């Protein structure tokens, strides 16, 4: 049976490999060199030039140049260095209704980043990995969808082939499952007989899921006859552009003279200087653009790391100081009773600990009573310190780095933001914070004005499947769950299973019970660990007084409360309650963090 299972598996894998082999796009034959541009937008041209794999990073940059060439904004280069170029968004409204979805996405990104109508070309980078990945995936999906609409591209593995592959996966799955069952049955003792057949069902189901995942996974695009003809034409354009030596040195601002040619040059990979000056990916957290004070400038950020005092509340510092003082006094007392050289060692150690503890207590007292108040633009938010996780308890962040530009210097040092508040702000926000200088701990945070980037990219998830995103862009299905969250505010979308799992320490799955309730259950035995209820509008107004019971949690939502194993948070006219059940009660200390995460999505 093992041999049958092996043969069935190999046969299925061979069939899958054959499908991949025959669905490869043929290399298009370059057409004659020509300077006449076709009708396809640069991002689609990039897809074709990349042999239908998927658009590369030049596609978004080419779209940016194309929008500039079409007058949606201007790119100016004030010095010889193209990296110093700035984008100036047109003051008046411009008819952008006819823009394609991916073009609008780039334009929205530029408009969101612009301050006073201007933004440095290198300030378009993202400050959040999830946002960068989510934005890019959606852009790619919209480009692919448009190429399909034009008949230039199609899914590499069609629906019929996927269905056949999925159905035939039953053969190796059953064969392996039967082989496993037979092996268990033959090796089992008399009392254990029969267990193999039960495991056969489980093994078969798991294997079907795996084979199904492999068969259904998005493998990119493939050519069509029309796509081959278009690609051939555009390779002719590439030959024409590549033959002009000056073209490879054109900066982004050259769109003012060359119109759409640099955009197509970027899409076809023959304008490296133009694309090198543009970056729509992830930015550096050490050198960050800030527009605080109405002037764009770069701020060098240092992130403190080593000393254990960073981020600690005063109580913890006092406790540490008292322990050191106590140990120091004990050392000094012990020194009297020690013989010989031990006296000096104990005395020195005791004195050192005493001084250290005293210094710590004094600094903690000064730090506590002299907090700094800062108003500035948030530059970066990232995890700094996490709790030490255990075998069945994942590490949970308790402190975040918060870099803020207060406009006084081009250098700054990040503060320590309690993780429960991390979801309240994002880069670009104007905030007022009070913080202790010695411990770098933020003690209060108020968002004065939300940044444009936060509104634009809220709800992105890196787990979104490309295949689903393309179908959503084609209008064949609703937008993926991540994109729906902010729109509908469903209970299940307010906390991810991953976040709940981190809090309760075991893998969980979420089950929607209507639009207002979500049950989080253990993945192993299905036991409920958390119940989330969501209310909005008049109903929320009616029930909130009953929900606001327990200890107030400062800085989470508009107001939040936690009790023994439950909590509630309100933001605007919506609120949610969370209640821990059974083994989930162990996550009670993390309730403020969970409420903070949920509040960010309310």
């Amino acid at each position, binding site marked *: 049976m093992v041999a049958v299972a092996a043969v069935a598996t190999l046969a299925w894998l061979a069939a899958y490999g054959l499908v991949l082999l025959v669905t490869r796009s043929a290399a298009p034959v370059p057409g004659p060199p020509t300077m006449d541009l076709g009708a396809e937008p640069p991002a689609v041209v990039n897809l074709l030039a990349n042999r239908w794999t998927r658009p590369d990073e030049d596609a978004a940059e080419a779209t940016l140049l194309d929008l500039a060439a079409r007058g949606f904004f201007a790119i100016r280069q004030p010095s010889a260095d193209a990296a110093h170029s700035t984008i100036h968004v047109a003051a008046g409204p411009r008819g952008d209704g006819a823009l394609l979805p991916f073009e609008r996405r780039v334009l929205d990104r530029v408009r969101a980043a612009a301050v006073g109508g201007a933004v440095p070309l290198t300030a378009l980078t993202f400050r959040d990995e999830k946002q960068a990945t989510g934005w890019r995936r959606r852009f790619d999906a919209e480009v692919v969808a448009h190429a399909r609409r034009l008949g230039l591209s199609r899914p590499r593995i069609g629906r019929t082939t996927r269905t056949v592959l999925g159905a035939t996966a039953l053969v190796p799955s059953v064969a392996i499952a039967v082989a496993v069952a037979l092996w268990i049955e033959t090796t089992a003792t008399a009392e254990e007989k029969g267990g193999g057949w039960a495991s056969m069902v489980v093994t078969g189901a798991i294997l079907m899921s795996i084979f199904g995942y492999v068969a259904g996974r998005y493998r990119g695009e493939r050519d069509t006859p029309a796509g081959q003809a278009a690609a051939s034409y555009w390779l002719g354009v590439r030959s*024409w552009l590549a*033959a*002009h*030596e*000056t073209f490879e040195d054109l900066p982004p601002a050259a769109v003012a*003279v060359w119109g759409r040619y640099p955009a197509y040059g970027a899409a076809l990979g023959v304008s490296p200087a133009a694309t090198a000056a543009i970056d729509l990916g992830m930015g550096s957290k050490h050198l960050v653009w800030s527009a605080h004070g109405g002037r764009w400038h770069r701020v060098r950020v240092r992130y403190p790391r080593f000393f254990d005092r960073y981020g600690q509340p005063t109580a913890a510092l006092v406790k540490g100081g008292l322990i050191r003082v106590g140990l120091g006094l004990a050392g000094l007392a012990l020194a009297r009773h020690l013989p010989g050289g031990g006296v000096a060692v104990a005395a020195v150690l005791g004195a050192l600990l005493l001084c250290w503890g005293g210094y710590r207590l004094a600094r903690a007292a000064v730090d506590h009573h002299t907090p700094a108040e800062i108003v500035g633009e948030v530059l970066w938010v990232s995890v700094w310190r996490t709790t030490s996780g255990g075998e069945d308890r994942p590490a949970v962040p308790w402190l975040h780095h918060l870099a803020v530009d207060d406009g006084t210097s081009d250098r700054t040092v990040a503060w320590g933001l309690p993780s429960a508040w991390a979801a309240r702000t994002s880069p670009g926000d104007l905030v007022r914070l009070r913080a202790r200088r010695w411990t770098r701990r933020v003690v209060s945070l108020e968002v004065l004005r939300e940044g444009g980037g936060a509104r634009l990219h809220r709800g992105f998830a890196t787990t979104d499947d490309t295949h689903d995103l393309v179908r959503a862009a084609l209008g064949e299905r609703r937008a993926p769950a991540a994109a729906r969250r902010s729109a509908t505010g469903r209970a299940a979308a307010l906390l991810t299973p991953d976040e709940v799992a981190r809090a309760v320490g075991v893998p969980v799955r979420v089950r929607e019970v209507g639009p207002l309730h979500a049950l989080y259950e253990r993945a192993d035995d299905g036991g409920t660990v958390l119940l989330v209820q969501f209310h909005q509008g008049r109903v929320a107004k009616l029930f909130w007084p009953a929900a606001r019971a327990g200890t107030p949690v400062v800085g989470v939502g508009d107001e939040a409360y936690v009790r023994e194993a439950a909590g509630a948070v309100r933001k605007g006219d919506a609120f949610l309650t969370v209640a821990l059940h059974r083994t989930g009660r162990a996550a009670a200390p993390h309730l403020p963090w969970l409420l903070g995460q949920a509040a960010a999505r309310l």
Partner: protein
Amino acid sequence: MTFDPLVVTVVAVAVVAVVAVVWAVRTFNRLVRQRNQVRASWAQVDVQLKRRHDLVPNLVETVKAYAGHERTTLEAVLSARAGALAAAVSPDVDQRARAEDQLGLGLGRLLALGEAYPNLKASQTFTQLQAELAATEDRIAYARQFYNTAVQSLDNSVHSFPGLLVAAAAGIRPATYFQASAAEQAAVAIRF
């Protein structure tokens, strides 16, 4: 181990000669590539200019239907087109540029008649031809840019040392820029 000085000298000279030949061949190939690019770019300019020439008769006929008594302007355009067609066979780029400038000016005056004759301005044929001419003018402008950048690349190679040695030996000469006249630069009427 010792080497015969004569052998060392011969080997050194041979190596230098091989390097020089390889360099000369590469430089020559580059110059030829650049010269071909100038020719290809000029061919594109030619294509776009011919497109403009082809538009002129239709445009003149359309204008004639609404403003037939503007004989002077119509004849000037037709005359300029004839001059441009005659210059098209000439290898002299400057002569061609001058002829095209004249045609551009004439077309500018012809299109300006649309302002004086509302019926002409409202004519769908006139509007279509106007748009087509505007697109053609854009193509001509870009074709000229491509041509001039190709000429510039060739010029840089031909005039810089040591490329000029190979260029002189191979008889490769710099090409002439296709200059836009001041009048044409100001002829925004055709660019809309």
